């Protein structure tokens, strides 16, 4: 496992006209780290994530993601990261198998390699006998596990999870986090946003954005000590309550 940072940003900034959505953020995320990225709606989370995943060109600063420069090599970044969001992940009207094949294809898996990855994935999720079913017919929890696995199908070293657990029941939520842990143990860096503050505690490190800046960044334990809070919810509230800008 290399000890080089997977994400490395220095004063990364994005402005839209006079509005600075992301204001000089600097941080590093190491291999195998679960990096929690929190913030109130409109704090600049989404913009920051778009820059890091190569979808949006930053205004200034520097950043490298999985070894590629966000300014010049956004296409390489897109090829080498995984992305999963609650809003969109899989095609409901395709079967499990077809979804895997489609997303595998997007990431350049072909022929035997794709077949192998597909088999592996179905086996790991114990979805072998459901592979011909439409994704629409799967329970939400399974869909989420499947879309996480699909996001990981090309074995990326970094995966972005945008509110991956919204609306699911508490057991499924925890099962999902077990998958995240497993991936992290295999050295994958997980970059995750969530509105569940207990989930923030599962992260190795958490950053909290307020008004486009990183207001705090540390392990959950250290943050709680620093703010004299019982849990991350209180930490978040203390920091985000002071936000000046609406969303």
């Amino acid at each position, binding site marked *: 496992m290399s000890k080089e940072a997977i994400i490395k940003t220095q004063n990364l900034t994005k402005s839209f006209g006079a509005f600075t959505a992301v204001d000089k953020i600097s941080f590093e995320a190491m291999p195998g780290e679960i990096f929690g990225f929190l*913030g*109130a*709606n*409109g704090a600049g989370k989404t913009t920051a994530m778009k820059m890091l995943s190569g979808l949006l060109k930053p205004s200034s600063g520097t950043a490298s993601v999985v070894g590629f420069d966000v300014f010049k090599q956004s296409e390489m970044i897109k090829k080498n990261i995984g992305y999963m969001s609650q809003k969109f992940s899989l095609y409901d009207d395709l079967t499990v198998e077809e979804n895997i094949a489609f997303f595998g294809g997007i990431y350049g898996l072909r022929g035997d390699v794709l077949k192998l990855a597909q088999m592996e994935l179905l086996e790991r999720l114990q979805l072998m006998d459901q592979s011909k079913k439409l994704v629409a017919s799967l*329970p*939400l929890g399974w869909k989420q596990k499947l879309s996480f696995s699909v996001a990981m199908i090309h074995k990326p070293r970094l995966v972005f999870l945008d*509110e991956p657990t*919204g*609306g*699911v*029941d*508490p*057991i*499924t939520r*925890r099962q999902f*986090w*077990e998958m995240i*842990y497993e991936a992290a*143990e295999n050295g994958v860096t997980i970059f995750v946003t969530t*509105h*569940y*503050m*207990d989930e*923030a*505690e*599962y992260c190795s490190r958490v950053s909290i954005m307020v008004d486009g800046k990183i207001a705090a960044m540390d392990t*959950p*334990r250290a943050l709680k000590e620093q703010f004299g809070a019982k*849990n*991350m*919810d209180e930490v*978040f*509230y203390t920091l*985000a*309550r002071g*936000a000046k800008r*609406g*969303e």
Partner: protein
Amino acid sequence: MSLIVKNIIKTYDKGNVLALDNVSFEVKQGERFGIIGPDGAGKTSLFRILTTLLLADSGVASVCGNDVVLGFDKIRRISGYMPGKFSLYQDLSVEENLNFFATVFGTTVAENMHLIKDIYVQIEPFKDRPAGKLSGGMKQKLALCCALIHEPKILFLDEPTTGVDPVSRKEFWDMLDRLKSRNITILVSTPYMDEASRCDRIALMQTGKILAIDTLDNIIGSYKNKVFGVETRQMHQLSQFFKTHKAVHSCYPFGDTLHVTPKDALLTSIELESSCKSAGFQDVKVFDIVPNIEDIFMNLMGQNNGI
């Protein structure tokens, strides 16, 4: 009783999908009643039946004494409804939306300003902005204003805090607190278990069934299982260990703590801690805790699913 629901069953897709499975409960005048459950629990179907938008397959329900089928037009006059999806007109401004919905209910914004003043002052600076261009928290406030503008006797709020950040969520519940004095009955649903504490009484729902109904304290008080909290720096490894532990029924992470339910209620925290230590986990602290709503929900889920 402000709301009476009796044996409601609702299916979709010609009976193939069971959305509500014999649901019954009652809500008192002025009470804030929370329907708590994940997506697919049947919350929205229930709300639509009570707001007269859908017909149940069987069972009866009444809102402030009006049957949801026969008295639908009366119910529509006295209810305020905030659907799960933001449903105001995106191209109309904040003010225009509010005026429109006031007129729809045959009233004016001025007449009922006292009801929404607390909330409206927060969105007033944006009153000329199209509703579609508001932030999530602002949209939510506007939707609540529109639902309140005709001074309803009962408010139906379907997942008002979904997808909203924790600060806005707190603010929203604080707004509901301030409505308390108006004696408006509120039926509210949420997938966030921690919001149970903001309701007078709650119903825990999963896959169309009500798993439990009571006040939060009573639900927790009547929970018979013992739950241990376990603190460690080796969260993931320890939880894997508990999964294979003979004396452990279930183990789930709760933030920085593991919640462990033993199979045998006689098991003590000291015994569990020493069994961890003998397995090589030195940095472990086990202690008794009061279970929280998620512990209970997960346990009930297990029973509901026949596990």
